[in-house]
């Protein structure tokens, strides 16, 4: 039994288990190591300070509420 690399696939030859590293995201790989934590969604909100601010998304108060600030319920228009 040995590990061999073939076209970005790490194959555990002689076994039925095949790891497709090429399609496994880094964090999925990390999830293998995390016993009690499962990643549902990885955001990059802090990076949008550089790319955001176009002002085209919906005004949060116009859509349905009129009585509370619902910025987080809006969708980016980009």
């Amino acid at each position, binding site marked *: 039994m040995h590990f061999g690399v073939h076209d970005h696939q790490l194959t555990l030859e002689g076994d039925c288990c095949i790891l497709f590293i090429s399609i496994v995201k880094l*964090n999925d790989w*990390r999830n293998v*190591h*995390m*016993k*009690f*934590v*499962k*990643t*549902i*969604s*990885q*955001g*990059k*909100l*802090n990076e*949008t*300070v550089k*790319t*955001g*601010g*176009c*002002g*085209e*998304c*919906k*005004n*949060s*108060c*116009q*859509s*349905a*509420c*009129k*009585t*509370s*600030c*619902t*910025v*987080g*319920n*809006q*969708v*980016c*228009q980009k």
Partner: protein
Amino acid sequence: MSNWHSFQALGRFFLFDVLSNSLFEINETVHQYLQGQPIAEEYRKDVEADLDELRQMGYLKEEPEAEVELERDATLKALCLHISHDCNLRCRYCFAGTGPFGGAREQMSFEVGKAAIDMLLAQSGNRRQLEVDFFGGEPLLNWDVVKQVVEYGEKTAPQYGKDIHFTLTTNGVALSPEIREYLNQKQIAVVLSLDGRPEVNDRMRGACYERIVPNYLALIKERGNQNYYVRGTFTKHNLDFTEDVKHMYSLGFRELSVEPVVSDEGDYRLTEADLARIKAEYDRLAEYYLEKRLGDDPFTFFHFEVSLDHGPCLPKRLTGCGAGFDYFAVTPSGELYPCHQFVGRTAFKMGNVFEGIQNEALRQEFGSATLYKKEGCAQCWSRFYCSGGCHANAEALNGSIYKPDHLGCELQRKRLECALALKGILMQDAEANK
């Protein structure tokens, strides 16, 4: 800790990373550890290893984020046109004082509406997508002017290279077939007021349920069941508001929003004593929502609709609703206020549609009132979802736009826990069914 939040909802445990807007499902032991509760020693090593792994990946930061300095152009985005300061209902909880916001019962002229559209188009800078909401009072009491303003906006906006998206909020009483046809033909989004069960609705809104529900059903059927929200208010008298959501669902409505009443007086007002009951009710509502979302005929509930991967950018989340800066309310006589809820609070009058915004100092104050300037917000884990909360509610209840309403904050955090848990469960379900 303000940079992450672990919580239990819908019988499961979640960890939300605030700065990245990331969500993880965790087990009860990790939750207990994060809450500072004792855990079995046999699990400690693995729990700490998992959390170290998250930290190495850049999550769970201890230090507060650096305050972002925003450079904002003072351009317009949206106007709320108080097309009518009169109403054909007398809802007990109305923050408009049953229509006139403490002033006279009057209607907006086309001249004022036209000037408002001109101001919006001329002062919106490079923005392309603009919004105009017809509000009141009851906008259908001034229907001819609504149509004139829509048609003027449609004709004029392209000359500026802009799109104006119109919304109309109505109580439905005067929603005739002709008006429905026009709203649908012009693709005007509608917010339809209904509190739920007949007895709940009619107790606060007067005996109108039997009249308005058929009008609403006809309207949404004619528009292909889209581009609307049925919007209710819950008060102390219907803390079991899940039953109202269920009722509205049973009628055939699928785009729903039910909001807590905003009031510091009256037997219907919500108080801190109601908090535990309301939180439990949001849990009930989340269970019902999940059941329907996992079934064949789902519905949307406005406060539970959050996008983890395609929500607003950080600058938007820091600055909030834009009231008083890029969003203004216009009274029937053309006066400008920071938003519809400020109308009638004369200290907040900011100008008029003919001469523009005259109180630039107040505009700059609203523009710089980011969440970092609001009491307690920088330490709150939900800060990037409510953006410091509603200026008007804070000012009305605590006398300052910088002092958020505590009850409102508690409800916001509870709704967000439900929304995130629902998102987490539904995203995993979708992944499993791929």
